[in-house]
């Protein structure tokens, strides 16, 4: 009887509103991953959730809300209560590109409180080895001499694999034919089989084929070289100065989340970027662990939105 009474007393104390406001987090946090379980972003989400759990001493539940290339889940978070208990493992596609290319109910800048990018992954320019193309310069020369002959594979018209090539074509004045596949893996396999000539493939998908000499890698798409393939030049240093396409994953909260919470998560993520285990786990999936301050991150999104807005208007796929 006494135990029961004590229990009820304890429970009512925990539930009392005065205490509830005192310290975040006092209940489990949901980290929404807007992609299917088992995917790349899901992996990043789970690594992050595990670290946050130990750092915050609170359960962090990963919830997969896949659909619409990340739009469904991102939309859900943007409309959630900004109390710090619903966070998003967002990614570049649904945040920086989709709101321009498609109709979304959220605004990439206004609907979220960006916290920090946790990982980045570049794309690799790969070509079928039977082609007489051994460098980025040769690729550009070949493409200019044979306009409309080279086929490039992508994961579909709404994906980064397509937009990165579109940006490349616009900067290098080349013209290639877009062949969409249902995903990154089949598009990469098509380069191996020679069904298409090239693709800008995620580092994770490209590495095994590069190691088996099934494809020839020419460059990486990020601003700096990748530690996973240090001998590959960047697109920017070879043929298209300023070219920078990188896929990122970041923790974001709904707009209006209290600043203390944003700062607290930010400091946890700053710690995480230094954690050896996390860096190793991210490397396993081909990702580089990074940290950005909320303000820097905000500016980065704004910059990317401007870049894609310009390109999409130019190639006429803006919504």
């Amino acid at each position: 009887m006494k135990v029961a009474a004590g229990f009820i007393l304890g429970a009512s104390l925990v539930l009392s509103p005065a205490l509830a406001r005192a310290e975040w987090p006092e209940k489990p946090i949901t980290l929404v991953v807007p992609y299917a379980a088992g995917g790349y972003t899901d992996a990043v989400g789970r690594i992050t959730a595990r670290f946050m759990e130990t750092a915050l001493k609170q359960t962090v539940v990963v919830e997969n809300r896949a659909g619409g290339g990340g739009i469904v889940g991102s939309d859900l978070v943007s409309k959630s209560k900004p109390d710090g208990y619903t966070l998003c493992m967002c990614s570049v596609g649904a945040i920086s590109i989709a709101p321009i290319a498609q109709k979304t109910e959220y605004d990439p800048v206004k609907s979220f409180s960006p916290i920090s990018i946790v990982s980045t992954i570049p794309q690799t320019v790969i070509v079928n080895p039977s082609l007489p193309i051994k460098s980025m310069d040769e690729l550009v020369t070949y493409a200019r001499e044979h306009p409309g002959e080279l086929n490039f594979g992508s994961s579909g018209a709404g994906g980064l694999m397509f937009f990165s090539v579109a940006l490349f074509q616009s900067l290098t004045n080349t013209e290639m034919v877009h062949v969409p596949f249902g995903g990154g893996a089949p598009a990469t396999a098509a380069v191996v089989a020679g069904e298409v000539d090239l693709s800008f493939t995620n580092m994770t998908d490209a590495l095994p084929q590069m190691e088996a000499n099934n494809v020839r890698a020419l460059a990486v798409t990020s601003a700096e070289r990748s530690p996973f393939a240090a001998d590959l030049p960047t697109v920017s240093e070879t043929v298209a100065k300023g070219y920078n396409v990188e896929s990122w994953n970041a923790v974001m909260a709904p707009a209006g989340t209290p600043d203390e919470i944003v700062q607290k998560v930010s400091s946890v993520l700053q710690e995480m970027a230094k954690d050896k285990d996390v860096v190793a786990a991210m490397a396993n999936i081909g990702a580089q662990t990074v940290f950005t301050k909320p303000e820097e991150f905000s500016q980065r999104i704004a910059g990317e939105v401007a870049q894609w807005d310009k390109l999409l208007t130019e190639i006429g796929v803006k919504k």
Partner: protein
Amino acid sequence: MVEVLSLLGHGFAVAATPENLLFCLFGALIGTLIGVLPGLGPVATISLLLPATFALEPVTAIIMLSGIFYGAQYGGSTTAILVNIPGESTSVVTAIDGYKLAQAGRAGDALAIAAIGSFLAGVFGSIVVAFAGPSLARLAREFQSPDYFSLMVLGLIAAIVLAKGSVFRAVAMIFLGLLLGMIGMDVNTGASRMTFGLIELSDGISFVAIALGLFGIAEVIQNLEGSLARIVNRSKIERIWPSWDVLKSARGAVMRGTLLGTVFGFLPGGGATVASFSAYALEKRLAKDPSRFGHGAIEGVAGPEAANNSAAQTSFVPLLTMGLPTSATMALMIGALTMHGIAPGPMVITRQPELFWGLIASMFIGNLMLIVINLPMVGLWVRLLAVPYRLLFLIILVISSIGIYSVSNSPFDIYLAIAFGLLGYVLRKLDCEPAPLLMGFILGPMMEENFRRSMIISRGDPLVFFQRPFSLTLILISVVLLVTVALPAIKRKREEVFSEEE
């Protein structure tokens, strides 16, 4: 040959450690369970259990997850047979004759044949993977967009054969399915098609929602129309084990289905689905009396079940050697492997031999476990049908609802299933069958995608479909099949016309 045997021996050494055996069994059990629970398929389950595997060794994790995958193949046929709910595209055809057998009190026959057929096919598929996997995978690489398009054409023509009644109605249902399959984002342009402004529909209608609605929910509504006592014929329910005659009549079907499945399983993108109903079409064509099909023909269960299980085994080859997923479940497997630091691709066999051969060895062990688990369960499942329908239908409705919910953790798919339950019920009343519809729904998007891709690559030349050996062969088979379907129908039509004139 000797080398393969020694590598396989090494694989067995990996797979037979107590820990790996335990998790293989655990995977097989979970797989059977979720296969049986309508709605909750391997995709949802593997994504739910994925985080739990992080604590395991990579080999152990992948052994367990594959156990779930092929365990679900066994379990999925159980639900298809008992309550007419196909959990995966490959068990749609199993439901057609399996459910009729169950209603006639022969659930035991259907379940046992499905289990035995799956086992034999699974073992055969595993042997092929071990001995010829990598070289067949290289051959499968030559299979490109135009060939896939022709494969889908063959699949759709095979879908006409699924029809019990009017061929005209079956074709109309295929077209309705094709149309429903077009809903969602267009891969080529990113445009949303017929989504009514709902972002939930941008990835298309979920298979689970449409299959459960058209089959399961519509079936429940129809069963509730009248007296609930007569839904299952209980007179013969006592006998659980199939007689020797039944086994003998299923033998040929199992062998043919196994071969079809083994070959098609290598093709990422629809291979297994096409295999299962090509097997059905083949059995119906070969049968002396095709009219039994659709009314409880045991070959209609044996062939497709064998096909989908051997395909389940061989579909691991494109996954492991190319990193190419053959289905949503396989895509999850890739995720699981990458999270364990293993990049599926051409290097897996040389770099992680213990993983590759351990997995293959575990397929033999897992299939053996599954037959040991499933055969005694047949009795249990058959007795489940003895639960009065006034309670059974509640179980079906509740578990289906949770199952659909768990696919994307949102109630949206339940609303879809309600809509398709209504459509399915009305279609039943109008003598329109759901199986061809579902086939059109599954194959349509792949067909369009591969057609458009072929046309882009060939720069608009339709001859591309006749210039490639794979594609040409498939088209010729389709034409032959179409003629054999159309001729009797035309003949019958003429007879009908004449009889009406009298």
